[in-house]
């Protein structure tokens, strides 16, 4: 606890500041921000294995290989293909 608390405290504040920042810059509706807010609920649901469940919440839940590569890198959160739209523009 003595070694871990301060760094984790700092990261939690980073998350809070990030969520404030994306709202200020009009990017709060980006699917990645939405996924982050949804996953963050798991932190305080009182159940164990939070790390595993957060990772699963941010994962592609489909099971079949994709037909072809998009040529783009992974972005950290999964978005249903029928909901894909251009990323939100900054103010």
């Amino acid at each position: 606890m003595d070694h871990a608390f301060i760094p984790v405290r700092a990261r939690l504040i980073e998350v809070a500041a990030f969520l404030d920042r994306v709202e200020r810059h009009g990017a709060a509706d980006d699917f990645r921000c939405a996924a982050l807010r949804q996953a963050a609920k798991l932190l305080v649901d009182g159940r164990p294995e939070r790390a595993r469940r957060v990772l699963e919440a941010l994962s592609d839940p489909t099971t079949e290989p994709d037909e072809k590569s998009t040529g783009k890198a992974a972005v950290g959160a999964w978005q249903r293909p029928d909901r894909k739209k251009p990323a939100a523009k900054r103010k």
Partner: protein
Amino acid sequence: MRYIEPHGHMVSRTTDDYQAMVTAGCAAVCEPAFWAGFDRGSVAGFRDYYRQLTEYEPARAAKFLLPHYCWLCLNPKEAEDLGLARDVLAMIPEFLDRPNVLGIGEIGLNRNTRNEMAVLEQHIDLAVKFNQLILVHTPHLEDKLKGTNLILDVLRSHRGVKPGRVIIDHVEEHTIQRVLDAGFWAGITLYPDSKSSPPRAVDMLEICGRERIWLNSACDWGVSDPLAVPKTALEMRRRGYSDDFVDAVLFRNPVRFLSQSPHFSAPGGK
């Protein structure tokens, strides 16, 4: 302390890193073939890279008294060109007898496409045919869970694959147990921003046990830390783990897996 760096892309690191690793206790480094940051355009480009991994890089490491080993393959990021992949795989056996080659890797998936799956299966066929160890890369971020499941399905369906001779790398909390349950080895990669941190790695050891697991830095030209493995030893000691525990995870475990290759020599005895 002593440790093995079982996954480091040293061609993209400086000699300062070699010096720091050896100073920290690194006793051997193993370098999987990986993506160059751009797609190579020809078989000749891959042949030159394999020469770098089997000729030049071991000599560079030797200047720091560090044994250097490597794995050979075509990276899944370059698997969309099936014709080039076929030709590269046909060329790989030319290098398998070289003294620092441990096996086929890091193969696997990147964006979980059908072409990547096809090339993964060809790599597994090649490894089985030539009785090689296998090192598997699992995809990044949101693709990891699905990709790990697809990889496990392919490996389990191949009759020639012996799980104890396969390590599935870059596991995290949502994939490690299913890899171990299937009998494979699991690699935990320590990255500053993604994959695992030293505290999370030690958490996984506490939850899953220390058998059939190794830790690596996967240091390359991206955001990564070539000293991530010895830094994790500090995290273990902070939690009260013994020197024997640290040695088992960071040295004896990788030695046990890698010694299945006739080309690997345990540094200083097991």
